[in-house]
């Protein structure tokens, strides 16, 4: 079985999303599921940036913050419908990513890491300091999306958690489909070429700066939409969504499962989203366990969980 193949990935994803609810004993599981999909979406964006293009960002929670606060602020101040507000947030994120990305992406490795980190921290600082607009560290309310009511009028009656499970699952499948398509497109090939060697890619005529920027802007849009979805389903948002730890979580999920494959990265989102839920009984140990998992996976499975497992399965089969 080839995990990189597009149809397999999408089939597995759709099947799991559709079948899992059969085993859900309570609405709490729908809630965790939709959180997984929201994180999965951000992580899919990072697959494009980290896995395809080989660039790192420790500031992508900044874009999630922009997406989230767009849903909270645009309906109030610009009179936009919450769904349009999410689109507005995505456009804003893309614009900012475009402006910030050009100078930032000239940097490499640790320099790129610290520059993107600085950007993310600036966004979260603005969100928590401009209290008159954003409610500061206490956060602010987000209006209802209203799609559930529309569905009810056409006879589909879903509970709140069920709706968000289905809706964010759908957006995740869509996002995964786009990312997988990108992989096999000329842009995807250019990204992978510059990942392999920037100089080699430039030599064969790839506009390295342009394609890095494409990956950066795309992943920013993914993060932004993920932030919007989170805000809309929680109906409440705090600056934590843009915080440094959230950026780290996003990158960890991506690399944990395997940055090179969409499915792997989503698996990383599954693990790191459910881990704290499972560990609530051992809340004292949550940080200890999270740190340990991060270190162990990176030391012993450098390609990430899924590719490592896939390789060992394949190795045994041969």
């Amino acid at each position, binding site marked *: 079985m080839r995990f990189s193949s597009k149809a397999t990935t999408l089939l597995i994803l759709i099947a799991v999303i559709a079948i899992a609810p059969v085993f859900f004993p309570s609405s709490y599981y729908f809630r965790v599921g939709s959180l997984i999909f929201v994180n999965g979406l951000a992580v899919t964006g990072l697959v494009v940036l980290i896995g395809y293009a080989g660039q790192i960002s420790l500031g992508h929670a900044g874009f999630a913050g922009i997406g989230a606060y767009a849903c909270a602020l645009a309906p109030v101040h610009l009179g936009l419908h919450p769904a349009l507000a999410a689109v507005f947030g995505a456009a804003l994120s893309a614009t900012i990513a475009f402006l910030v990305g050009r100078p930032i992406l000239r940097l490499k490795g640790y320099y790129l890491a610290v520059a993107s980190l600085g950007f993310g921290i600036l966004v979260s600082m603005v969100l928590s300091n401009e209290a008159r607009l954003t409610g500061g560290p206490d956060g602010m309310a987000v209006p209802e999306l209203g799609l559930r009511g529309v569905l009810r009028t056409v006879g589909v009656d879903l509970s709140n958690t069920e709706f968000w499970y289905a809706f964010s699952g759908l957006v995740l499948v869509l996002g995964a489909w786009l990312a997988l398509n990108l992989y096999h497109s000329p842009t995807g090939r250019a990204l992978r070429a510059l990942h392999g060697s920037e100089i080699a890619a430039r030599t064969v005529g790839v506009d390295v700066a342009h394609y890095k920027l494409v990956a950066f802007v795309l992943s920013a849009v993914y993060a932004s939409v993920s932030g919007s979805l989170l805000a809309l389903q929680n109906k409440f948002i705090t600056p934590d969504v843009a915080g440094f730890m959230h950026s780290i979580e996003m990158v960890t999920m991506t690399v944990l499962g395997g940055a090179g494959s969409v499915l792997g990265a989503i698996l990383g989102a599954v693990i790191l989203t459910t881990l704290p839920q499972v560990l609530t009984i051992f809340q004292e140990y949550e940080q200890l366990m999270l740190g340990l998992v991060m270190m162990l996976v990176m030391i012993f499975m*450098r390609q990430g969980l899924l590719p490592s497992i896939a390789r060992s399965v394949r190795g045994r089969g041969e």
Partner: protein
Amino acid sequence: MPELLQFLLSGITVGAVYALVALGFTIIYNASDVVNFAQGEFVMLGGMITFFAHAAGLPLPLAALIAIIATAAIGVALNKLAIEPARGAPVVSLIIITIGASIFIRGATQLIFDKQLHRFPAFSGDQPILIGGATILPQSLWVIAGALAIFFCLWLFFTRTLIGRAVLATANNRIAAQLVGINTNYVMTLSFAMSAAIGALAGVLVTPITLTGYDVGLALALKGFAAAMLGGMGNPKGALVGGLLLGVLEAMTAGYISSQYKDAAAFVVILAVLFAMPQGLFGRKSTDRV
């Protein structure tokens, strides 16, 4: 100008701590090409262990010594258990490993000790000293003197001792260093021990002023990292100057612009420095091998 002087003095105090963290970064970065995001946790450990040893009845100097030695041991363990097994891993993996280590240390600290903020008495009392209309705490002088002393010792170590030169050789080219008979594993162990001990010392010195708690490490790591980058990654002189500059800059922003955005100023300047001169103030230009 007592106001300006006051901001300058408090900026230099904070900057001295950033400089110590940045020096710790620099040592590990030079020896192993790893940026250790757990560097701030060493500072936290220095303060926390000293407090609890002191609270258990040990005299302060002994408590501080125990804290520094224990933190150095943790630094060595970090290298042996997490960094060495991952040698040759990509930058992203190394970033995640050291961030994982920092989260792990934080989690362990909150379990073993507690989640409270702690402080132990200043070394020479809390009576502020008047300088030209501004005041400075005696403890601030300890912090500044500590940073300068460490910088001077490091300079002596790297330029005047054989083992210091061995560390530089390892940093320059690991395989070549091995070929001329340098025990590079020992060099790595030593670098992590030194770096952790310097971090712990910073924690011991600054805790009477800023207090300490299990979660103070991350912010310090980020600032120290920024300072190291401002000065030029891997350059001890850059770490010192970068740290002091960053501290003063923050104090000026807090004083004249907005105290809420003092952290922002630091990152804005770092972004500007990275864009204008990506190698930092004292860094050398490097080229890539194809």
